C-alpha cells in the first residue's frame, strides 16, 4: 500500500514536472518577442549606463572609472540635486492624483450613449495630442503669459494676474495644471476599462434599488480597480520622469523652481557633458521609482480586484 502510494507520487511528480515544463515553454513562447528585445536591446544599454554611473564620462572621450564618486557628490555636495528632488516630488504628488481624478470624472461623463459623445471625446483628447512640439511650447507660454488668455479670463472676474510661467511662486503650479490638462491618456484607459464592465452588474444593482452613488462605489470602482492601478503606477513613473513641460516651457526656471529631475539629468548629460554623473542620477531615479512602484504593488493586494482571480 505504502509502496503503491510512493510510486504514484513519483509518477505524479514527474507528470507535474512535465506539465510545468510544458507551461514554461508556452509561457516563454508568448513572451518571446519581449524577451528577445529585452535581452538584445534593453539589458545591454541599461547595464552600460550603470557602468557609466561609476565613471567620469564626458560623452566624447573614454570613460574613466571613479567608483562611487558621482553618487557621493550627488548626496553630499549638490544643492541642485536636492532641489530637483523636491520639485519632482511636489510635481508628482500634486499632479498624479488630480490628473487621475479628473480623467476618471471625464471618462464617466463620456461613458454614455448620448449623441455627439464621440466628438466630445475627441475634443477632450486634443490637449493630449498636442504633446511636446516647439509650436505647443509657444502656445502654453502664450496662454499662461502676462498677456495671455488665462489672465484675460481672470481679468473678467476682476483678478489681476501675473506671468504664471515666469513667476517663481506659481511656475510649478502652472506646470501641474498643464499636465492635469493633458489627461487624455488615462481618460482613454479609464474609458476602455469602463466599457469592459459587464452591463448586467448595473442592471442587477438597479433592480436591487442601489442608487448611482452606491453603484459607483460598489461596482464601478472595484471593477475598474485593475485599470486604476495601472494608471496610478504609470502616471507615477511618468511623473517622476517628466521632462517636456519643464524643458520646453520654463527651461527649469525661474531660479530652478521647475527643475524636474529629468531636466537636471538632461542638462548634466547634454549641456554639461557629464554623462557619468547623469547616469548616476538616472539610477538613483530608478531606485526612487522602484520604491514607489513596489509600494503601490504591495498595497494593490488589498484594493485591486481581478475578475479572473475573484473566484478564488
Amino acid at each position, binding site marked *: 500500500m505504502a509502496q503503491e502510494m510512493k510510486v504514484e507520487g513519483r509518477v505524479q511528480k514527474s507528470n507535474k514536472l512535465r506539465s510545468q515544463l510544458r507551461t514554461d515553454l508556452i509561457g516563454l513562447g508568448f513572451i518571446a518577442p519581449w524577451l528577445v528585445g529585452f535581452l538584445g536591446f534593453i539589458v545591454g544599454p541599461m547595464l552600460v549606463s550603470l557602468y557609466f554611473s561609476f565613471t567620469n564620462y564626458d560623452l566624447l572621450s573614454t570613460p574613466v572609472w571613479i567608483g562611487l564618486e558621482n553618487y557621493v557628490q550627488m548626496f553630499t555636495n549638490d544643492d541642485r540635486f536636492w532641489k530637483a528632488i523636491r520639485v519632482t516630488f511636489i510635481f508628482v504628488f500634486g499632479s498624479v492624483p488630480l490628473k487621475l481624478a479628473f480623467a476618471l470624472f471625464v471618462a464617466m461623463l463620456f461613458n454614455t450613449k448620448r449623441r455627439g459623445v464621440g466628438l466630445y471625446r475627441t475634443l477632450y483628447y486634443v490637449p493630449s495630442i498636442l504633446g511636446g512640439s516647439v509650436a505647443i511650447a509657444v502656445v502654453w*507660454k502664450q496662454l499662461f503669459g502676462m498677456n495671455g488668455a488665462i489672465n484675460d479670463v481672470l481679468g473678467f472676474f476682476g483678478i489681476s494676474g501675473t506671468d504664471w510661467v515666469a513667476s517663481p511662486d506659481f511656475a510649478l503650479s502652472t506646470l501641474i495644471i498643464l499636465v492635469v490638462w493633458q489627461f487624455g491618456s488615462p481618460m482613454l484607459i479609464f474609458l476602455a476599462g469602463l466599457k469592459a464592465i459587464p452591463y448586467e452588474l448595473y442592471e442587477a444593482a438597479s433592480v436591487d434599488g442601489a442608487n448611482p452613488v452606491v453603484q459607483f462605489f460598489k461596482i464601478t470602482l472595484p471593477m475598474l480597480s485593475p485599470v486604476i492601478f495601472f494608471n496610478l503606477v504609470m502616471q507615477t513613473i511618468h511623473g517622476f520622469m517628466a521632462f517636456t513641460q519643464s524643458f520646453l516651457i520654463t527651461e527649469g526656471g*525661474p531660479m530652478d523652481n521647475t527643475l524636474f529631475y529629468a531636466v537636471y539629468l538632461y542638462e548634466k548629460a547634454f549641456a554639461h557633458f557629464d554623462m557619468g554623473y547623469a547616469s548616476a542620477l538616472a539610477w538613483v531615479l530608478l531606485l526612487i521609482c522602484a520604491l514607489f512602484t513596489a509600494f503601490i504593488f504591495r498595497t494593490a493586494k488589498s484594493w485591486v480586484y481581478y475578475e479572473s482571480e475573484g473566484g478564488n
Partner: protein
Amino acid sequence: MRQKVKKLLWVMMLLFLVGVLVACSSGEESNASNEDTDNNASDNEEASQDSGKEEVELRILWWGSQDRHDRTLEAIDLYMEKNPHVTISPEFTGWDGYWEKMATQAAGGNLPDIVQMDYKYLSEYVGKDLLANLNPHVESGALDLSDVEDVYIDGGKIDGGLYAVNLGANSHAQAYDPAMYEKAGVEPLEPGYTYDELISKSQELSEKLGDDVYGIQPSANVMGFKHYLRLHDKWLYNDDGTGLGYEDDQLLVDFLQVIKELIDSGAGTPPELFKSAGSNIEQQSIVREQSAILMELHSNQLVALEQAAGRDLELMVQPMIEGGEKGHYIKPSQFFSVSTHSEEQEEAAKFIDFITNDLEANEILNAERGVPIAGEVREHLKSNLAPAGLKMFEFVELVQDYAREIDPPDPQGATEIESLFENEVEDPIYYGEVTPEEAAQNFREKATEILAKNK
C-alpha cells in the same frame, strides 16, 4: 533544474553586457578598419580611372530654419554642379536636438565630414579631438582665407590652430525702437554712452511713454557681464580656464547694481513681462511695444525681431565706461568645422572655401548666417540687401570702432558656469531674492569649484 535555468539567465545577461561593452570600445577600431577598406577602394578607383578626379562623398550637418535650409541646399547644388566629382549629402535639423544628435554621432564615431559649430561648444569639441585642425589646408591653398581679416578668423582659433571657419560675423548689441523715442520726445543715445546715461535715458523714456510701457528691458545675463568685464580689461575666465578671470567681486556687484536700479526705479520692465519669453526673440517686450530698448541680443537677430514686430527697429552698441577699454568683439555667429571622423578632410575644406569666397554661392546664401567674412563677398552683397540685412552689415562695421580682439573660447565647463550664472545670479536679481553682494560671492564660490576640475 530551477537553479540551472537561473544560472543560464545570468550567464546570458553577462554575455550581453560584455558584448555591448566590447561593441562600445571597438567603435573606434571598426571606424579605423573602415578607413582602411575605404582607402583600398579609393586606391583601386584611382588606378582604374586616371582621368578625372576620384569620386568624393561628403556628409554635412547644420541646424537652422526654413530660410537657411533652402539657401544652403541651393548652394550645395551649385557646388556639386561646379565639382561633378563631389556628392554632398545634406543633413539638417532645427536647433532643438542638434547637440544631442552631434553627441550621439560623436560617441558612435560617426560624425559627418562638415558640421556647423557654435562658439559655445567649440572648445569642448576641440578638446575631445573631434574637430580637425584646418591650418594645413589653409597653407595648401584648399581653404583660401587671404581675403579675410583676422578679426573674423580669430574666433575659430584655439592655441594657434584653426578649427572652425566663421560663417558670419555678428556682435552683441542692443535694439531700440526709434518711433517710441520720437513719441516720447527723447533723443536716442549716441554710441559711446555710459551705463549712467543708459539708466537716466531709460527713466526718461519710462516716464514719458506712460503706464505699462517701460524704457528698457533689462538683462543681467552672462553676456552683459562679460561685456562689463571687458570694459575693465578683464575676462570671465583666467587664461588656462581653471578659475575666474577677475579678482574683485565689486565688478559683478556694480554690474548687477545697474540692472537692479533699472528695475527698481521703474525704468526697466518687471521680470514678469520678459522672463517667460526665454530665448525666444519674438516674444521680447519690445515686440509688443512694452519697452523701447532691448538690452541684449545678437546683431543677426534683428531680422527676426523686426519680422515679429512688424516695424523698423535699430541696433545700438553696448555702453562704455569712462577711461575703460573697448568692450565689443566680433563674434562668430556659427562655424563650419571639419570633423576628425572625416576621411576627406581636404575636400571638406574646399567646400568651406567655396562657402566663404564664392560670390555666386553667397548671393544664394544672402548673409543669412551673419555678415560674410570675405571682403569681396561683403562688398558684393551690400548692394542688394534687404533693409534689415543692411542694418546688420552697417552695425558690424560700426562695432569695429568699439571692439578689440576676442577672448579665447570658453573653457570646458563653461555651459555649467552659464547655467550657474542664470540660476544663482540673474534670476534672483530680477526677483529681488538676493543682494548683488550675495550673488557675487555665491557665484565665485560655486564657479571656482566647477572650473577647478580643469586643473
